[in-house]
């Protein structure tokens, strides 16, 4: 029997594929089997394996990072970094805070970048802006206190409280 791919060499490899319950038999010569990748040598280059490799790589001895760091845990969802580095999936939005140093490195590796420059959602965006403003006002308030301008500080305190109420914090 001739190879079904090149129609030239003798078929030496029989491949059975089952896709969605449809069985298909293919007869290939060794060369074509290698090229079409129908021979699986147990090498797993799947996306998930590459990703988790990337996550684990941070703990390679050459990186001089203490292995015990692996046990840090997200307080909100209780996912450990160790579990994340195996699954490649984070457990909640707080994980980005809980593992921030590590995540930052991972993001730089994956995206070559660590800062979002795209769309800002309207409502959440307002919150982000309000939070920034609170931060700024706090700084001003501290300065006012240091200068013993207590009236001004009280004004700022009220403004901060108002803003925080608005964003529900």
């Amino acid at each position, binding site marked *: 029997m001739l190879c079904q791919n090149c129609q030239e060499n003798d078929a030496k490899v029989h491949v059975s594929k089952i*896709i*969605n*319950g*449809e*069985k*298909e038999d293919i007869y290939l010569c060794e060369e074509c089997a290698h090229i079409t990748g129908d021979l699986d040598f147990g090498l797993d280059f*799947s*996306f998930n394996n590459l*990703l988790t490799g990337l996550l684990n790589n941070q703990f390679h001895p050459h990186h001089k990072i203490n292995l015990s760091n692996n046990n840090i845990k997200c307080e*909100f*969802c*209780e*996912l450990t970094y160790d579990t994340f580095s195996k*699954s*490649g*999936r*984070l*457990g*909640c*939005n*707080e994980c*980005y805070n809980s593992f921030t140093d590590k*995540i930052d490195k*991972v*993001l730089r590796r*994956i*995206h*070559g*970048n*660590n*800062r*979002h*420059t*795209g*769309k*800002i*959602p*309207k*409502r*959440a*965006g307002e919150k*982000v802006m309000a*939070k*920034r403003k609170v931060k700024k006002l706090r700084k001003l308030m501290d300065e006012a206190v240091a200068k013993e301008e207590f009236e001004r500080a009280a004004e700022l305190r009220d403004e901060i409280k108002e803003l925080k109420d608005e964003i529900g914090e």
Partner: protein
Amino acid sequence: MTGEVISQWMKKTGPDSDVVISSRIRLARNLENIRFTNQASDDELKEVIGKINNLLLNNNKFDLNLLELGDLSKNKRNMLVEKHLISPDLSEKNINNAVALSSEEIISLMINEEDHLRLQVLLPGLQLQEAWEMADKIDDYLEQEINIAFDEKYGYLTSCPTNVGTGLRSSIMVHLPALTMVNRVKKFISAISQLGLAVRGLYGEGTETVGNLYQISNQVTLGRSEDEIIENLIEVTHQIITQERNAREILLKEKEIFLKDQIYRAYGTLKYAYKISVEEAMKLISNVRLGIDLGIIEDIESTILNQLMVIIRPATLQVLKGEEMTIEDRHIYRAQLIRERLQ
């Protein structure tokens, strides 16, 4: 109506549809302070579905119809996979997850996939910009009522760090029979991966290419704006279109008889076969499609082939027949459907 075998959009063509079959935008979003799907409790997963359900009950601006996967038969679920409306994972899990579909099946909102929300807009031909504008509006509509996990620095927070930032995966499905015939596809795949784009088979990650169909999508989601990501893909797509068209012209000029022979043999087999596998049918449909695009075959429309590519798949085929079938019966019924549609 959703649940029909042919999505409305499949009956239409779009710009550059001789090479680009469809354009897809996908946005990954999560609800704030609810654990991501993989860590969430059953109650949390139900809460996510409930929130979307409430939103649709109050203000169903985009006319979405919510289906819980657990309520559908296996074939119906897999049909949605074959139509690219849900992921294989969503179908396989089918507990505490759902999909909301628009009547034309252009919009699909998966609930409790890897992320709480996966919004997809699918349009025929090269219409990435249009698909993005639509997805952007739906995203705004969802965000009005639902608190979305967003971080000032990292953008939209997703379960997998490869999606964080914009949460945007833009992709096109292209038909490249001529580039495949002249053995240029491997070269082109390696060139594309250097541009931060990925090439995949018909059904996404890890699937193989069938019928000379390839999916090309962006990899980087953080540090680039949505417009940059989409423009980049559109530009590359224009180049692919030019290359494929050139290859078709050259083949027609230099190898006319070979080409016509391949195309008419494929057409003949599809028209008269009495049993056929998916793989063979997809291969032949690809050749006939090429024949239509080159003006060699003139008596059928290419949208018929778009529809055939979906209805000949195992699950859709069985939904259409209304019963479970053995593989042998499927081969026979598949050939019958194709014969009927090509007469």
